[in-house]
């Protein structure tokens, strides 16, 4: 019988669908009879979804940070210097 501790150790593979068929069945059996682990699994999934979207805007686009003009000029200057020095 799978324990809560053993199930917790398998959550990454469970969520990523990397568990073998027998292990997956055992995990599902445990979750069906354990409210705490069912909640832990749901919260783990939600955590992954929250992390993946944490740096997106509400429209689902990745954040961009405007590059300050002096940084643009500094980058171009450093590349010019590298070029003058013989291509880096």
């Amino acid at each position, binding site marked *: 019988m799978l*324990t*809560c*501790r*053993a199930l*917790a*150790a398998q*959550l*990454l593979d469970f969520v990523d669908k990397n568990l073998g068929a027998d292990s997956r069945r055992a995990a599902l059996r445990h979750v069906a009879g354990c*409210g*705490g*682990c*069912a*909640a*832990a699994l*749901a*919260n*783990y*999934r*939600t*955590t*992954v*979804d*929250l*992390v*993946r*979207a*944490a*740096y997106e805007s*509400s429209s689902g686009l*990745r*954040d*961009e*940070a*405007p*590059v*300050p003009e002096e*940084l*643009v000029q*500094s*980058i*171009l200057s*450093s*590349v*010019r210097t*590298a*070029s003058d020095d013989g*291509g*880096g």
Partner: protein
Amino acid sequence: MSPEGRRSDDAARTPAPGLPSDERALLAALRRGDEEAFETLVREYGGRLFAVARRFVRSEEDARDALQDAFLSAFRSLARFEENCRLSTWLHRIVVNSCLMKLRTRRRKAEDSIEDLLPRFHEDGHQAVPSAGWEKSADVLLESREVRDLVRAAIDRLPESYRTVLMLRDIEELDTAETARLLDLTENAVKIRLHRARQALRGLLDPSLRPAAAC
């Protein structure tokens, strides 16, 4: 402007037909040493790459350094770009590398342990503090700017070696093998760190997202 290797046969290399036409034209101009093309590259891709640097290294000064180092590195590597991926993907890898190097030079103090953030279990293997399901789904939670800020703040509280793996795998979307290569870890070590980082993060978010205790 003449990137390393431009004067060799690489100068005549034609970008692969797999690249979109605008990227092929830009790449060809870059390889000719066209200064305006490099400025276009910086202005067109810089915003997204600067955001990557800022979320990785967190200090504005380090992010600026990382971005500058990345573009310089890209310039020096133009001849070696094999065109088996989009320019944006190639630049993304370079800026991630630049950030990791910056983090390595900054990592001086000992990390806090992650153990206190992980779920606890009784000797018989049962949860010491049974989990309670969060009330709202990720889709609903993500409508709130406050929740996004909460998640970012929680990510920043992770010990650096765990935060880095989480960033690479779940946010920058690198696969396990590439993450392992970049961090000089085994793939199994990456999986373990990612799992522990997610578990710790769940613990950090739980007090804010679990249903309010019944009176």
